[in-house]
């Protein structure tokens, strides 16, 4: 050891311990982009379930169009379309049981909220600037829209933990995006969920964008699902434009959670086909060629092809659905537009359960000033 300057490399049982992750894993897929099921398995869903799911996707697409038009006419505020993410949202939402499970939304999951008991009327109310639109109907297991990205993740974990604490068998599915996954709240929530084996599903919709920021500028991770390993629970990457893949992954996650096995992180890789919201101009930053690629993967077209091929969906059936949807949307809009609108003093309502004297005085002053 006298000439300890030798430079041979160390050897140790290094191999098992080094975690590298450079391979980009392929998402789980059941339904091919052309609507076929390559491995020949028959997705085990009842026909009515398939039609209900398809209808909800159709409705979502239609609301996007309608609401975008209304926004342009100044009849509605800025909102964020679901366009392109219908399989991801509907596939996950329909794997939940609205009677006992909870949905914790971000702001781009309207069909999941509708499926859970939210109403289109409230949707229109909300985007017309009526706070009532963010009050979920009593008994409906839904938290309100969340504007502050990723802050709902700790809520979802607490909610799931609380259900379990009370011996309830509900599961919580919380939605967020590739952008939100960079926030510290994501990490803290996942870590706590792992510790408490909370019955929560982290439904990460990786739609390629956070406003104008592409996901490659959001993270160097080859997959976001891979992060689950660092919290001691499974993560799964699925093709988010494949209704079946999302439905299946969510169903398994629900089963795990219900059985007390804890959380799952699902990364649904999808694509935001529209603008970030109606105030955004994606032509400033989206490569049209990339958009074309994704247009060919449209989740709605894909599911339709499958349903038509399997004989579940006929042209007339879809036509009938469209007519119904049209009426539903028109009815909800009319109801929202007929709504008296918020009373000014509503600014003061629901701030506290027991209103401080100063706030009561401010309320009176406002009312006097009107």
């Amino acid at each position: 050891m006298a000439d300890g300057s030798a430079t041979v490399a160390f050897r140790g049982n290094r191999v098992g311990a080094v975690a590298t992750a450079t391979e980009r894993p392929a998402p789980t897929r059941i339904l091919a982009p052309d609507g076929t099921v390559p491995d020949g398995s028959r997705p085990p869903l009842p026909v009515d379930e398939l039609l209900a799911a398809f209808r909800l996707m159709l409705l979502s697409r239609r609301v996007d169009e309608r609401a975008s038009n209304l926004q342009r006419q100044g009849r509605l505020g800025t909102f964020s379309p679901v366009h392109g993410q219908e399989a991801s949202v509907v596939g996950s939402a329909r794997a939940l049981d609205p009677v006992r499970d909870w949905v914790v939304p971000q702001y781009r999951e309207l069909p999941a909220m509708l499926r859970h008991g939210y109403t289109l009327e409230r949707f229109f109310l909300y985007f017309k600037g009526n706070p009532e639109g963010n009050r979920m109907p009593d008994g409906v297991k839904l938290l309100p829209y969340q504007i502050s990205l990723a802050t709902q993740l700790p809520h979802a974990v607490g909610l799931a933990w609380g259900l379990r604490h009370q011996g309830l068998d509900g599961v919580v599915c919380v939605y967020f995006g590739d952008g939100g996954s960079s926030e510290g709240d994501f990490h803290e929530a996942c870590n706590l969920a792992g510790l408490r084996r909370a019955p929560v599903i982290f439904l990460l919709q990786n739609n390629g964008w956070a406003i104008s920021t592409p996901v490659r500028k959001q993270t160097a991770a080859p997959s976001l699902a891979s992060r689950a390993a660092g919290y001691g629970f499974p993560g799964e990457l699925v093709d988010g434009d494949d209704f079946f893949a999302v439905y299946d992954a969510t169903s398994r996650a629900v089963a795990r959670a219900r059985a007390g096995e804890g959380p799952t992180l699902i990364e649904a890789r999808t694509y935001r086909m529209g603008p970030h919201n109606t105030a955004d101009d994606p032509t400033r930053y989206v490569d049209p060629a990339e958009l074309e690629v994704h247009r060919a993967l449209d989740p709605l077209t894909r599911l339709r092809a499958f349903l038509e091929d399997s004989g579940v969906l006929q042209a007339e059936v879809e036509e009938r659905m469209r007519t119904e949807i049209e009426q539903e949307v028109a009815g909800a809009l009319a109801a929202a537009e007929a709504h008296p609108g918020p009373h000014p003093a509503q600014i003061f309502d629901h701030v506290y359960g027991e209103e401080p004297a100063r706030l009561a005085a401010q309320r009176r002053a406002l009312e006097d000033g009107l």
Partner: protein
Amino acid sequence: MPVLNMVEAIRATLAAEMTRDERIILLGQDIGRNGGMFRATEGLQQRFGEDRVVDMPLAEGVIVGSAVGLACSGLRPVPEIQFLGFASQAFHQLEGQVARMRFRSQGRFPIPVVIRAPFGGNVRTPEMHSDAHEAKYANSPGLKVVMPASARDAKGLLTEAIRGEDPVLFCEPLRGYRLIKDEVPEDDYATQFGRLRTVREGSDVTLVAWSAAVVVAEQAAELGAAEGISCQVVDLRTLVSLDAGGLGEAVARTGRAVVIHEAPLTAGFGAEVVATIVEEAFWSLTAPIARVAAPDTPYPISSLEALYVPSAERALRTIRRVMQAG
């Protein structure tokens, strides 16, 4: 009536409320087996089990954020933040979530969450442990901000907080945990928010304070008495809800006011006290209202903190000045 120090009063109140209401669960760092840094939860995990006294990972954001979800599930969580300075890590969850979920959901989801957090100086802690951040939270609508200065009030206000429907930031004076001792009734009582407490009667000048600064105000009043200055001392107890009327009346009685607090001067809650007095009692003022606060610098290292935190001597100098004015 038994004499308890503040930490004993808090511990006893937590135990009593947990016994009364199964929905209450405690969350925090080191609150279980270790009983909390200051023993506020000592013995509670043994008594109520690991499911109701939960040692949390080191992440203030999710301690507060998960409490929001626990509340939505129907529970009444009482999270502890080890030191108020570290509530900054949870600031977005406190001001944006805890405070607003009821409003956002138009009443569907009340958040009956009481966040306990100690703070305050002259206990030789490292940086950030002593910071007095109350003004930031008082400017966060939807939250209530409660700052007891006696063991009796610690019990009454904590009881009120835990039984109420609104989220409360409940700040406890580190230095007072053991030093503040007084008679605490054994019966069940809750102290209403929004009512200040007159700690000492006096006719020349009104000293306004909260939390550990009330002790400083009392000492200053003693010193003043020795010089023939009669100081009234009022303890605000709750910053939100603020007892604006009571504050105005108290100051109207003497015509002079000095506010004492541990936070830095600029935009500290003392400013709100002055503004409120101006609104409520302007015409009875016979001298400018003065503030005794920490300087506008970060909390310094231990050897300098005695100069930083307002002392009775410093308060007395200001009291003298106010008495000479006008």
